[in-house]
């Protein structure tokens, strides 16, 4: 008998927070349960979409950071 999995279980699975045993059970369950497979695909898509939200800071901010690091010893009071 296949164990029942919820969306929460699948979210843990997507984020790598399930045990090896749970991973195997989920992978087996997906083969037997089309609906579960679709649910997993949708959740994977939902989380992958979030990666499109990654923003970049301005080059000027990075320049300041690198300059601070390069001049760090000069900035320190001896």
């Amino acid at each position, binding site marked *: 008998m296949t164990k029942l999995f919820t969306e929460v279980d699948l979210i843990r699975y997507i984020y790598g927070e399930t045990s090896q045993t749970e991973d195997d059970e989920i992978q087996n369950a997906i083969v037997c349960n089309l609906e579960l497979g679709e649910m997993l695909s949708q959740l994977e898509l939902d989380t992958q979409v*979030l990666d499109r*939200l*990654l923003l970049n*800071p301005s080059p000027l901010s990075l320049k300041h950071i690198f300059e601070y690091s390069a001049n760090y010893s000069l900035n320190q009071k001896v």
Partner: protein
Amino acid sequence: MKKVGVSDSLLVSHYKNGSEAAFEELVSRHKSRVFTTIYLIVKDKYVAEDLLQDTFIKVVHTVKSGKYNEEGKFLPWVLRIAHNLAIDFFRKDKRYPTIVMEDGSGVFNTLAFAEDSVESQQIKCDTNALLKNLVQELPETQKEVLIMRHYMQMSFQDIADTTNVSINTALGRMRYALINLRKKMEKMNVAYDQTIYRS
């Protein structure tokens, strides 16, 4: 998403030994995730730029003064600094930092940044800009979990401990955050090519 090449740990080690190139690689590698984490909390690009610099100034000081704890992973440590600075900003500021224009849009959507004006013009029209707004519209508790899990890469147990809720509550909030985002995107008729994201 596994990183290939030199590990963060090795880069930190090189940086400790004086390699500025190693530090530049570390910053380049993680700048987007750190900046996005800050931005989603403070909702203001310019504040986020300042806090990003403050974050890495703390990193520089800690590593170069020999106080960096090798036991922890580099990125979670940096993200924790960034998160704390962003939260501190709110505590000091005690106001919603988003400037709203006369037409009701956020000032972020009206700015063309000197460094990437062509790109920012394009961003206005693509899914990213809309997605940013949709994330901002999520209830605070859901947005908090989403930022901590997806961008800060904290475990659900750590999120539960940090936010003083049970792990089931943290997981439930993440589930609702994803479902709500999906519904919002569907409602706004945002289509994305599913094949883009297939690995």
